[in-house]
């Protein structure tokens, strides 16, 4: 038996440096925000999928969610899949509802990134020969920027435009970590992190949590203001070391995950009205336009510079401000993106609402120890 899965509601909390809140506080707040949005009783939740890398070492296993939510004696699965953790948690809940095993599934993601000042930079000191020692995340992604500029004539200014756009959106989105606007010059003159990438090309280190509820069409009709169906999902994993040429400028895993999601949904890139995509760095979003098929390969720089990713562009990309402005609490990121696409599809996205949206796409990319785009998850949602 297969059936469709729908989004029943969402719980978003303010992303930011939540020094006063513990990991548990974030989980509780996201769960309570969800209950505030959708009137289901906890006894109606059949199962939960929980996304976290547990960077803070405080929330390992489903027991952390049971502890934070009171969902005792409930099957809860922790999902860990690099930066695609949150979106893969959603995907697993969708599969469970589609299979008929589960009618109502909680997806909750959380990450406490700011309890250590260093963030993930200490990973670069890993004592491994060759496999990524001395290489930080900005380097993994920045190497694509260098090569993209070389190969396609993409300019540094075009890359900066991604950050300018997303900060503009973030300044209008209530839950964003950073709410300032910046210019291309601001990006180009910000502190050098990993040349060619500067500080404003990089997402901040952010605490956060988010929740969505996935369920059957019957439950959606009962609880949701609009019917939002998960039209297709795609997950793809690549090896750490696949040295194919496309990996120098792109993310083969995104291409594969999105083609799976497109095929399952019956939609193509031309049908997508709004997208929340993985912009851990400005360059990541730029090449993701190409990987998702929003524009031709090599055309990502022009795509953003010409405003085609703006709120009123061909595809509104990252109305929430994306990871660059909203922040990137890893386990929560993908869940929050699905929540935001849901808000867009039900017309409740406030100041960043895109007009006339029917199809939305959510995307994450995670890298392994040498930046070949090891894992990507894409979920396509539609308003029925």
């Amino acid at each position, binding site marked *: 038996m297969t059936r469709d899965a729908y989004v029943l509601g969402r719980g978003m909390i303010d992303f930011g440096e939540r020094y006063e809140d513990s990991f548990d506080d974030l989980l509780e707040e996201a769960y309570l925000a969800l209950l505030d949005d959708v009137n289901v009783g906890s006894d109606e939740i059949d199962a939960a999928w929980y996304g976290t890398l547990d960077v803070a070492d405080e929330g390992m296993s489903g027991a952390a969610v049971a502890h934070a939510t009171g969902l005792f004696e409930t099957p809860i699965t922790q999902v860990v899949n690099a930066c695609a953790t949150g979106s893969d948690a959603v995907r697993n809940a969708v599969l469970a509802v589609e299979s008929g095993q589960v009618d109502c599934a909680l997806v909750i993601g959380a990450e406490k990134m700011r309890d250590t000042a260093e963030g993930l930079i*200490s990973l*670069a*000191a*890993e*004592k491994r020969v060759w496999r990524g*020692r001395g290489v930080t995340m900005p380097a993994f992604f920045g190497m694509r920027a260098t090569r993209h500029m070389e190969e396609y004539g993409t300019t540094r200014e075009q890359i900066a435009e991604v950050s300018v756009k997303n900060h503009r959106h973030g300044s209008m989105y209530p839950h964003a970590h950073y709410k300032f606007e910046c210019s291309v010059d601001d990006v180009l003159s910000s502190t050098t992190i990993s040349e060619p990438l500067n500080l404003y090309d990089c997402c901040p280190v952010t605490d956060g949590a988010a929740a969505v509820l996935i369920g059957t069409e019957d439950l959606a009709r009962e609880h949701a203001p609009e019917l939002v169906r998960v039209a297709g999902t795609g997950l793809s994993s690549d090896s750490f070391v696949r040295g194919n040429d496309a990996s120098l400028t792109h993310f083969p895993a995104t291409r594969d995950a999105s083609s799976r999601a497109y095929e399952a949904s019956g939609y193509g890139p031309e049908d997508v009205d709004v997208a929340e995509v993985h912009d851990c760095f400005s360059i990541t979003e730029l090449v993701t336009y190409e990987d998702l098929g929003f524009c031709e390969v090599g055309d990502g720089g022009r795509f953003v510079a010409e405003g085609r990713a703006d709120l009123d562009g061909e595809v509104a990309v990252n109305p929430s401000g994306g990871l660059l402005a909203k922040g990137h609490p890893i386990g929560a990121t993908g869940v929050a993106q699905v929540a935001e696409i849901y808000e867009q599809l039900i017309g409740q996205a406030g100041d960043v609402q895109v007009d006339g949206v029917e199809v939305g796409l959510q995307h994450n990319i995670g890298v392994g120890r040498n930046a070949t785009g090891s894992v990507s998850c894409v979920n396509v949602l539609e308003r029925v």
Partner: protein
Amino acid sequence: MVSIAGAGGYVPRYRIEREEIARQHGGAASGETAVAARDETPVTMAVEAAGTALARADLRGTELDAVFAASVTDPLAEHGIAAHVAYRHGAEGDVRTGDFRGSPRAATDAFAAGRHFVAATGGTALVVGADQMPVEPGHDDEPYSGAAAGAVVLDDADDAAAAVHDVAANTTGFVERHREHGEPAEAGDRRVAAEMGFGGVVPDAAERALAEAPDAPDAAVVAAPDQRTAAGAVSEIPGEVEHVSTFDRVGYAGTATFFLDLAHLLETAAGGTTAIAVAYGAGGADAVALTVRDEAPGRDEAADVTTVAEQLASAEYVTYAEHLRYRERPEYEGVTAE
């Protein structure tokens, strides 16, 4: 006869101008001194020099039968250099290795061991010296404490780069200069050292080494901790002798100085040059007598190697602070998952 099939030197790219050190602590000094980068050690420098020597000799490491290494600054008491150099260049299994240390004379101890090995077995031996001298800010030796490596490949071919006539030892048991691990040396009374040490031992060793040589020496290499001592020793060698030295660009680099200067001599001397190469250290001195051959394969200018002269000329100057920092062992805090 045992021959040098090929030689190679390694000089770090980083240098400190001695004036820069003099500016910190007063006094005057000219020239420059080689500073190993943070990721260079006696092992890595030895590997570089050995690679050049092997390329000069047109040999693969797998063809080596023995690898001997000299160092007086290896930071590890047990770990060694020879086996690492051997393995890196492909030599394993029944290859004989040996590490020589405890005195800068370890350079000639290793050389003599290589020569004996070749003479006894007909095999091929690689001999390498590598050092990174420690410094103490303000110490007299600070401007001259260098880093380098040098290597020779020894075999018994007749057409090699140079013929080795003999290695002569002169052991006196007299020790003035000494050094604790990681510390600069205590030079002791220079006049006593000059009288009892070098002055007495070098001429005798040189004379015996040259006994079988066809000609009087035209050139000399003398590895000594300071240039006045080295020049004094050269002046004790009879005849018109050119002193080949990298001291002004490298400083004193322990056991490496002997091999580096020898490589520099082999790369620059005219065919037919007879030379004497001396290493002085605690308890005596040794001298090697050799004659450079014409157009020997091991001196082929077309070989894909970087000569000592080229390395001397390829320098990047560091600040005084960097010169101190680069000599400290880095502290690696990253996680080891073993």
